C-alpha cells in the first residue's frame, strides 16, 4: 500500500470514525447519568437524517441552515425519547432506584420498544427503500488535495465534528448544565444535596447527546448518499462498541475508540472483502472485554 492510498484511506477512516464518535458521545453521556444503555440512540441518528432530508426537500436552504435545523430536530427527539421511554419508569428520585438493576432493565427494553416503533413508523411513511436526495446537497464532489482525493463531505464532517466536540467540551466543563450533568453522573445523591434538579439534568443529557447523534445522521446521509429507515443500526452498534471500549461513561475515551474503529475498519477493506469488515469492530469489542473488562479508558471504579 503506497502513501497516497494510505492517506486516502486514513481520511475516509477518520471521517467515519468521527461520525461514530458523535453517536458514541450520546451513549456515554446517557450511560453516565442513568447507567443504562439507550437502545433508541441509533434511531435518533436516523431521525436526524430524515429530518434533514425533509428540511432539504421542503425548504432547500443552504447547508449550514440544514445542519442547524437538524440540531434542533435531534435535540427535540432526545427530549421526546426521554419523556416516552425513560421518564415513566422513574418513579423515585433517589440514587438507589435511579440506577437500580430493575430500572436499567426496564428502560433498556422500553428504549428498544420505542426504537422498533420509530423505525417501523419511518418505514411506513417513507418505505424501506433508499431515499432520493437532491443532487446539489450530496456531499460527494471531489477535491484534489495534492495526490489525495477527498470530497467536500470529508471537510464538512471534519469541520462540524471538530466544532461539536469543542462545543461539547465547553458545555461539559464551562456551563452550569454541563457541570450538573457531570455531577449527576458522578454522584446523584451529592448532586441533589447541592440543589441540582436531577430530572432537568437528565433531560439536558438526552438533548445534548441527541444533538450530536442527529447531526451525525444527516452528515452520513449526505456523505454516503444513503438515507433509509434502518440506517441507524450499524453506526449505533459501532458507537456502542466504542462506548464499551472507552469505558462506558468516558466521552473522551469513546471518541478515541470510535476513531480507532473507523480507521481500522477502513483499512481492513484493503485486505478482506466488504462483508467481513464488520468483524473488525466486534473483534475489538471481544478483545477489549477480554483484556480490559471495564474498558480501556475507564477512569473510575465501575458501578455495576
Amino acid at each position, binding site marked *: 500500500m503506497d502513501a497516497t492510498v494510505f492517506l486516502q484511506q486514513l481520511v475516509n477512516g477518520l471521517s467515519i470514525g468521527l461520525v461514530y464518535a458523535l453517536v458514541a458521545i450520546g451513549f456515554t453521556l446517557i450511560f453516565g447519568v442513568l447507567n443504562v*444503555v439507550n437502545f433508541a440512540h441509533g434511531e435518533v441518528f436516523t431521525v436526524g437524517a430524515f429530518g434533514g432530508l425533509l428540511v432539504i426537500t421542503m425548504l432547500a436552504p443552504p447547508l449550514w441552515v440544514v445542519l442547524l435545523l437538524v440540531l434542533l430536530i435531534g435535540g427535540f427527539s432526545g427530549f421526546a425519547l426521554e419523556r416516552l*421511554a425513560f421518564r*415513566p*419508569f422513574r418513579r423515585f428520585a433517589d440514587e438507589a432506584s435511579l440506577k437500580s*438493576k*430493575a430500572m*436499567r*432493565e*426496564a428502560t433498556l*427494553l*422500553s428504549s*428498544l*420498544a*420505542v426504537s*422498533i*416503533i420509530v423505525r*417501523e*413508523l419511518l*418505514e*411506513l411513511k417513507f418505505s424501506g427503500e433508499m431515499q432520493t436526495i437532491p443532487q446539489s446537497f450530496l456531499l460527494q464532489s471531489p477535491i484534489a488535495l495534492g495526490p489525495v482525493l477527498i470530497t467536500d463531505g470529508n471537510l464538512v464532517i471534519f469541520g462540524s465534528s471538530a466544532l461539536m466536540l469543542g462545543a461539547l467540551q465547553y458545555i461539559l466543563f464551562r456551563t452550569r448544565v454541563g457541570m450538573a450533568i457531570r455531577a449527576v453522573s458522578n454522584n446523584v445523591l451529592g448532586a441533589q444535596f447541592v440543589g441540582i434538579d436531577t430530572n432537568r439534568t437528565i433531560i439536558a443529557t438526552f438533548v445534548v447527546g441527541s444533538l450530536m447523534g442527529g447531526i451525525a445522521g444527516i452528515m452520513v446521509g449526505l456523505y454516503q448518499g444513503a438515507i433509509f429507515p434502518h440506517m441507524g*443500526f450499524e453506526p449505533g*452498534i459501532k458507537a*456502542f*462498541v466504542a462506548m*464499551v471500549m472507552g469505558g*462506558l461513561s468516558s466521552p473522551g475515551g469513546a471518541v478515541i475508540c470510535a476513531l480507532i474503529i473507523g480507521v481500522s475498519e477502513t483499512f481492513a477493506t484493503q485486505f478482506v*472483502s466488504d*462483508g*467481513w469488515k*464488520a*468483524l473488525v469492530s*466486534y*473483534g475489538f*469489542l*471481544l478483545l477489549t*472485554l*477480554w483484556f480490559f*473488562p*471495564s474498558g480501556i479508558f475507564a477512569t473510575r471504579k465501575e458501578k*455495576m
Partner: protein
Amino acid sequence: MARHLNRWLILALVVVLVGLSMANKSYLNQVAITTMIFIVLTASLNYVTGTAGLLSLGHAAFFGVGAYAAALLSTKAGWSFWFTLPAAGVITAAIGIVVALPTMRLVSIYFAVATLGIGEMLYVTMLNWVGLTRGPMGIRSIPAIELPGAKALGLSSTEVSMLAVALVMLASLWAMHRLSHSFYGNSLRALREDDACADAMGIDIARLKLEAFAVSCFFAGIAGALFAHTTGYISPESFRFGESILVLSMAVIGGLGSLYGSVIGAVVLSVLPEALRELGSFRMIVVGLVLFLSILFLPRGLLGEVSALDLVRRQLRRAPAAGGRRRW
C-alpha cells in the same frame, strides 16, 4: 393449585395448537409450527436471561447455528431429522461454550454487550462464509421431518411436522422445567440475585454461568433444527439482531424467569402479528407497542415468576383453611 393451573394452561395451549393444525389449513399449520418453535427458543432464552440473570442479546445467532448445523448435516451428509436434531443442539452448545468462555468473567451489561458482539459475529460469518453456508442465498430443500409409520397412519407431511415439533417442544419444556425448578435452578436464581453472595455461599459461579449458557444454547440449537426442517429453507436474515430482540420481547412480555410466561409470551408475539395481518404494515408497530405497554404496566410480565416469599405468604394464608395445620 397455582402450579396445577399453570400445567393446565400449557396443556390447553398444546391442545389449541394441535387443534389449529387439525383445521386442515396449511397457513394455520405453519403458524402453529412457528409458534411452537418460538416457544422452545423463548424458553431457552428465559433459562439463561430470566433464571440465571445473564442478559443475552445474541440469542437468534445461536438459533441460526442450530439451523445451519441441521441443514448442512441433512443436505450434505444425508442425516435424518432424528439425528440432526440432537447434533444441532450439541454443536450449538459447543460453539456457545467456546465463544462464551472469555465472557464468563463479565458482569451485567458487559455480558450483554459481549453476547451482542458474538451474535453479530456469528451472523457476519453465516453471511460471508459462502463456501459453507452459501451466504445470502441460503440453503434450500432441507428434507422435511419424517416419522416412522406415518404412512401407515395416513398422516400428511404437515401433520407429521406438527406432531414431531410438538413432541420435541414438550420434551424441551419438560427438561427446562426440571432444570429450573430444582435446587440446581435455585442456585441459578442465587446467581441472578447476587453473584458475589452466591460465590461466598460456595457456589462455583463461573462454572454455573457456563453451564446455564450451554444449556440455553443447546435448546436454541434444537429450536434451530426444528426451524430448518419445517421451513425447508434458511438464510442468514432470519438470525439477525432484530430476531434476538423479538425473542427477548417474548420472554419479557411473558415474564422473565417464568417458564410458563415464556410460553405465553411466545404465543402472544407469534400469533398477534399473524392475527393482525389485515393491518398490514402496522403489525410490527403493534408488537412494539405491546412490548412498551407491557413493560410499563406489567413489569413482571403476563405470568411472572412467583417469588419464594410470595409462595410462603400464600401457604400461610391458606394454612387455616387447610385444617389449621401450618405446612412449611
